[in-house]
C-alpha cells in the first residue's frame, strides 16, 4: 500500500545541512497498522510527512496505493492527498469552526454540495461518538474529543491510508487507550491502512501489527511487534522495550545471587549455580517447563524476577531464574529449554553490570 524507497531528506540548518532521513526503505502492507517508533529527533515526523509529501524528500520515491507521489504535479498531488488522511499531536482543528464544520472541511475543499456533506459528516460523527457535540467549538471540548474530531475529519474524504503523527502524545493514558481502540476499530471495520508515529512503546504494543524502529534517520530494526518485543536486536530497541518491560535486574536480586554463588563454591565442587534469563513467546508459554527442569534434571530452582504480557493475543514473557545443580545437568537443562523454543541467556552477576 505504501512503499518508500531510498528516502533521503536534508534541511538547511544553522550549522550546515541537517540530514533528517538517511536512506529509508519501508514497505507497509494494505490493511495493517504499522508503527514507527523512535526517540525525539530520530526523524519520525519527517518520515511520516514524506508519505503525503508534506515533506518532499531530497531523494527517493514515495508510492501510495500504486501511485508514485513523487512524480505527480501539484494538482495530481492534491488529488492523491485526499486518499491519505492525517491526524496530529495537537489536533490542528480550526477554532473558528464547529465540530461539524471541522469534519466538513475536507469535503468543502473537494467541492461537495452542502447536502452531500451533511450526508457524510453525520455518520462519521456517530462513528467517533461525537454526534451530540456537533455544534460545539473545539475550545468547548476535551483533548480526547478533539482527537476524535481529528479522526472523523481525516476519514471524511474516505481515504485508503491514515497517517497518525503522535496522535496520542498529548493525551492522558486513559484517553490514549480509548483513541487507540477507536483507531483499531476503524482499521478493522473500514480496512484502513494506518501508519502511526510514536515515541511510546505502549502505543505500538496496544495496536500495531508491525513496527519499525527509527534512529538517526535510519530504520534500524523492523518486524512483527511480538518479534521485536521478544527479540530486540538493537540497543535503541532494547531501551524502548525496556520502558514497558524492564529487563535490567534490580541490584538487590543480583546481590542475592552473588551470595548464593559464594555459598555454593564454598561448599565445594560438584554443584554449579547460574543465573539464567528465559524468554519465551507463544505456545512455549503454556508448557510446564520449569517443573520439567526440576523433575528431569534434579535442579534447584528459584524464580527471582519475571513478567508476562500479551501482544496481539500472544503471551510472552521473561523469567530470571537461579538454577543450581551438577554442571552436566545444568548444561543438559539449557539444551532442553532451547529445544522447547525458549531463549536462554546467562546473566553476568559481576559488578560491571551497568
Amino acid at each position, binding site marked *: 500500500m505504501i512503499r518508500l524507497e531510498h528516502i533521503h531528506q536534508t534541511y538547511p540548518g544553522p550549522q550546515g545541512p541537517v540530514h533528517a532521513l538517511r536512506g529509508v526503505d519501508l514497505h507497509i502492507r494494505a490493511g495493517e497498522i504499522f508503527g514507527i517508533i523512535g526517540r525525539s529527533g530520530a526523524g519520525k515526523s519527517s518520515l511520516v510527512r514524506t508519505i503525503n509529501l508534506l515533506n518532499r524528500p531530497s531523494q527517493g520515491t514515495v508510492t501510495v496505493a500504486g501511485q508514485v507521489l513523487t512524480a505527480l504535479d501539484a494538482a495530481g498531488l492534491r488529488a492523491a492527498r485526499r486518499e491519505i488522511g492525517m491526524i496530529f499531536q495537537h489536533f490542528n482543528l480550526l477554532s473558528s469552526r464547529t465540530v461539524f464544520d471541522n469534519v466538513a472541511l475536507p469535503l468543502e*475543499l473537494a467541492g461537495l454540495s452542502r447536502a452531500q456533506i451533511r450526508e457524510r459528516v453525520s455518520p462519521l460523527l456517530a462513528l467517533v461518538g461525537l454526534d451530540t457535540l456537533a455544534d460545539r467549538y473545539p475550545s468547548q471540548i476535551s483533548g480526547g474529543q478533539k482527537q476524535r474530531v481529528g479522526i472523523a475529519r481525516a476519514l471524511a474524504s474516505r481515504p485508503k491510508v491514515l497517517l497518525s503523527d503522535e496522535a496520542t502524545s498529548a493525551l492522558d493514558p486513559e484517553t490514549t487507550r480509548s483513541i487507540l481502540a477507536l483507531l483499531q476499530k476503524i482499521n478493522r471495520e473500514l480496512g484502513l491502512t494506518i501508519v502511526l508515529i510514536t515515541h511510546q512503546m505502549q502505543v505500538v504494543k496496544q495496536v500495531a501489527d508491525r513496527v519499525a524502529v527509527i534512529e538517526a534517520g535510519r530504520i534500524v530494526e523492523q518486524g512483527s511487534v511480538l518479534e521485536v518485543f521478544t527479540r530486540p536486536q538493537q540497543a535503541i530497541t532494547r531501551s524502548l522495550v525496556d520502558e514497558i518491560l524492564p529487563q535490567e535486574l534490580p541490584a538487590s536480586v543480583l546481590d542475592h545471587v552473588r551470595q548464593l554463588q559464594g555459598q555454593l563454591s564454598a561448599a565445594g565442587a560438584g554443584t554449579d549455580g547460574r543465573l539464567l534469563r528465559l524468554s519465551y513467546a507463544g505456545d512455549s508459554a503454556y508448557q510446564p517447563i520449569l517443573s520439567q527442569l526440576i523433575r528431569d534434571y534434579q535442579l534447584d530452582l528459584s524464580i527471582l524476577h519475571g513478567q508476562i504480557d500479551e501482544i496481539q493475543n500472544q503471551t510472552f514473557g521473561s523469567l530470571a531464574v537461579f538454577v543450581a545443580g551438577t554442571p552436566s545437568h545444568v548444561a543438559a537443562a539449557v539444551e532442553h529449554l532451547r529445544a522447547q523454543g525458549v531463549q536462554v541467556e546467562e546473566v553476568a552477576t559481576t559488578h560491571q553490570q551497568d
Partner: protein
Amino acid sequence: MFQNFSEALLELFAVSLWETLVMVGISGALGALIGVPLGVFLRLTDRGGVLENGAVNKTVGWLVNAVRSTPFIILLVAIIPFTRLLTGSSIGTAAAVVPLTIAAAPFVARLVEASLREVDNGLIEAAQAMGATTWQIVWKVLLPEAMPGIIAGLTITLVSLTGYSAMAGAIGGGGLGDLGIRYGYQRFLPDVMLAVVLVLILFVQAVQSLGDWAVRRLSHR
C-alpha cells in the same frame, strides 16, 4: 457654555462631522480592501509561508515600511500630483481620501500580517494534507482563523484614521479636526474646540466598542 454656537456654526459642525465620517469611512474601507490582500501576500511569501519567496517579500515589506515611516502631513502634500490624477483636484474631502487610503493600507497590511502569523502552522499543514489549494488555504483557513485579530486591527486603523483626518484640513479636506483648528484655535472659540473634542471622543468610543463586540462574537478560541 457653547454660547458661540449660532445656527450657522451648528450647520458647519454637522457638515464637518459628515466630512469626517466620509473620510474615515471611505479611506478605511479602501485601506482594508488594499491592506488585507497585501497582508495575506506578506504572510504567504514570508519564510515558512505557502508561497515562500524571500526577495518578493522583502521588496513589498520595504515598500510598506517606507509608506508607514513617512509622516502623514508630508504624505498628504507629497502625493498631490497622484491625488489630482485620481480625483481631478488636490483639495477637498475627496482629495483627502487618497492620502488617507495610502496611509491606511500598509498599516492594515502589517496588522493583518501579524494576526495571520498567529494562526498555527499546523492548521495550514492539516489543510495541505487534505489537498487544499493555496486559495482555499487563504479563504477557508487563514482568514477565518485570523478574523478576530483582523477585525481588531481594522478597529485600530479606523481610530488612527480619525486622528489623521484632522490633518486633512491642510489640503482643504474639512472635517471636525479642521473645524476645531480654524474656529476653536484660530478664532479663539474654546467651546467649539471642546465640542469637537467631545464628539471625536464619542466617535472613537463607538468605533472601539463596535470593534470589540465584533471580535467577541467571532472569537471561539
